[in-house]
């Protein structure tokens, strides 16, 4: 049903700004360069950012932690359908959060604030459930996992690197483009970046240990929503 417009207050009529103000505005506008980055270009940057961040983060981890493989050691031994299904759900989770945070919506002011809140709050618990509930693995992966840090601190660093790359790209994609609800939008962007860092860890780390998964994988994913909400709003506001 269409929303009804409330009756306007008859006492109020729009008033034109004084001529001096108009001149000041014209002079200021003439001296200020405007961004040429269209919405389409910005969204394209964000779309490229997620897979690039994963690839760069994983490659970087191989260089920093010598001996750490690019992908999990048992990648080719894993049950294909189960692995592909789990990966697809994780990608969908991160992708949905990214879409909700980035798309401008029909009013050009982003999606409804309740959807942004859901995106910001749901990614970490869903990621934790999807990775900890009947984790996928093989004997080869389990053997490799025994050599990993029990708390998964290197994994947390990899997640931080991937998430920061994605978050930076998302922030640049929406730079000065969010006049409404910037904190909610920033939290959703952070959650999306966290979701992509979780995908990277799922591709690289064979660990099934609960403590490792919680501290090394889920905690960074959750932290990114908070980080986004704290760091990004200033960048997003016009």
């Amino acid at each position: 049903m269409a929303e009804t417009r409330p009756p306007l207050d008859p006492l109020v009529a729009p008033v034109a700004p004084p001529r001096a103000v108009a001149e000041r505005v014209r002079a200021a506008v003439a001296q200020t360069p405007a961004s040429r980055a269209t919405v389409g270009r910005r969204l394209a940057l964000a779309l490229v950012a997620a897979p690039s961040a994963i690839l760069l983060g994983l490659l970087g981890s191989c260089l920093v932690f010598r001996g750490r493989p690019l992908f999990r050691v048992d990648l080719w031994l894993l049950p294909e359908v189960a692995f592909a299904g789990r990966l697809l759900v994780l990608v969908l989770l991160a992708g949905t959060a990214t879409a909700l945070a980035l798309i401008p919506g029909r009013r050009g002011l982003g999606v409804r604030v309740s959807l942004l809140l859901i995106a910001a709050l749901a990614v970490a618990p869903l990621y934790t459930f999807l990775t900890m509930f009947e984790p996928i693995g093989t004997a080869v992966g389990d053997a490799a996992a025994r050599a990993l840090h029990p708390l998964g601190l290197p994994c947390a660093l990899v997640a931080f690197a991937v998430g920061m790359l994605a978050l930076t790209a998302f922030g640049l994609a929406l730079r000065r483009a969010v006049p409404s609800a910037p904190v909610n939008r920033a939290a959703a962007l952070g959650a999306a970046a966290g979701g992509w860092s979780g995908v990277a860890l799922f591709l690289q780390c064979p660990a099934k240990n609960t403590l490792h998964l919680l501290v090394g994988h889920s905690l960074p994913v959750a932290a990114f929503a908070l980080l986004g909400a704290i760091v990004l709003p200033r960048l997003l506001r016009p």
Partner: protein
Amino acid sequence: MDADQVMRRYAGGEDAAFDELYAALSPRLYSFCVRLAGRNGDADDLFQDAFLKLHRSRATYVSGASVLHWAFAIVRSTHLDRLRKRARRPETLIASTDDVLEAIFEGSGSPESELQAEALARIVEQELQRMSERNRSAYILLKIEGLTAGEAAAVLGITGDAVKQRAFRAYEALRAALARAGFQQVSRG
């Protein structure tokens, strides 16, 4: 020409569309600034800052969206930025918005009715400045600018229910202020 179409041209890089855009948007935006910021000097600065931001981020305007609602959101965001900057300095009550009120009531009827309307508007204006920014912005968008609850919610970045609640609180405060000043509510029908 339709403001949305003008904005589309301006967002596409057509600098010459600025004058048309300014003419189309400035009365509504300036009035919004006056009601948000209260004092005339503040409203002028807010208007200038907001228009500059609108210009700077013009490429982020989404074709097909209402430019007025987008501009309202920019004004409100700019207003909140300015409030944050001087958060440690408590806002004083408005001095006056005389010029604006005079412009509104110039030649609007008999001298007596003009006086009464001006007194009424002054109380509304002062009470608006006295209430919280949240309630004030919701009331202005819903009752003065005529946005729907959904549109106001998008501009303010809150839910539609929250907009209605805040506007209702503002309305109640205004009603109480007018009653204190001796204005009676006239029931219609």
